[in-house]
């Protein structure tokens, strides 16, 4: 699904205060923005706050938006900032430092070599494994998770992800690789463990 190419919005109408056009925009981007909030914050209340704040913010700043980026990039940027702000707020409340070296260029070496990729989808996607996948995504450092969500969940390009997060494309690629490898490692140990469990039953 690539929203930015399937929907065209009239910037002129939006800036002139055309409410029908704005409603169309809201409907086109609500689902991905809500999902981004859910995956970043992990709960529906925060996801709904991010969703509402994103569009309130968009309404307020529509007149400053010059159309140098696409409407999609602009909205995702607002949403990503809302999400990161809320994460920072939540963290300062419980007062823990995120000590993960998020910007290191090192990609950790793979450790688990079990080829679970050949298992049928039905077995890979039991309710138990779905929640293992969710947990694995939640465990990613925030900055890696954000890149991973935009690129692999929302299917945006490297270039658009870089524009949204104000990063270089090289930086996005590095974070994406690290996120994918970290998830692969976690899922590999999960499926390896599950296979062992089945065999001993």
């Amino acid at each position: 699904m690539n929203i930015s190419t399937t929907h065209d919005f009239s910037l002129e109408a939006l800036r002139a205060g055309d409410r029908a056009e704005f409603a169309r925009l809201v409907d086109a981007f609500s689902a991905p923005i809500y999902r981004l909030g859910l995956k970043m914050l992990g709960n529906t209340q925060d996801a709904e706050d991010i969703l509402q704040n994103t569009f309130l913010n968009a309404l307020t700043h529509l007149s400053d938006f010059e159309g140098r980026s696409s409407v999609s990039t602009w909205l995702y940027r607002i949403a990503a900032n809302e999400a990161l702000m809320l994460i920072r707020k939540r963290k300062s409340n419980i007062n823990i430092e995120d000590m993960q070296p998020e910007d290191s260029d090192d990609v950790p070496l793979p450790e688990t070599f079990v080829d679970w990729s050949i298992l049928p989808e039905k077995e890979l996607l039991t309710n138990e494994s779905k929640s293992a996948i969710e947990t694995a995504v939640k465990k990613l450092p925030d900055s890696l998770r954000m890149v991973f969500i935009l690129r692999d969940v929302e299917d945006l390009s490297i270039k658009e992800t870089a524009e949204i997060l104000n990063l270089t494309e090289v930086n996005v690629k590095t974070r994406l690789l690290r996120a994918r490898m970290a998830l692969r490692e976690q899922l590999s140990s999960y499926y390896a463990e599950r296979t062992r469990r089945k065999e001993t039953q």
Partner: protein
Amino acid sequence: MTDLTHQNCQALLGSLSEYIDGELPPELCKEIEKHLEGCDNCRIVLNTTRRTIDLVQIPSEENPLPDEVRERLFKRLNLDDYLHARE
């Protein structure tokens, strides 16, 4: 048994993402494929990484937005009039 600290394995890991996304030039792809033929571990890492991406994408194909969340959003934005206009 291959050792992933091997130079070729490390190089492959570094371009794994771009290889999966089809963003590498054909010559480089050929080199990678040649390495993959003889390296079980790298092949496993590639296959499971691809599958990992697939699996994370699958649940997101469903529309995650509950109707009542959409309704509250439209009210908050004073767009009540357009609540039923969903395309």
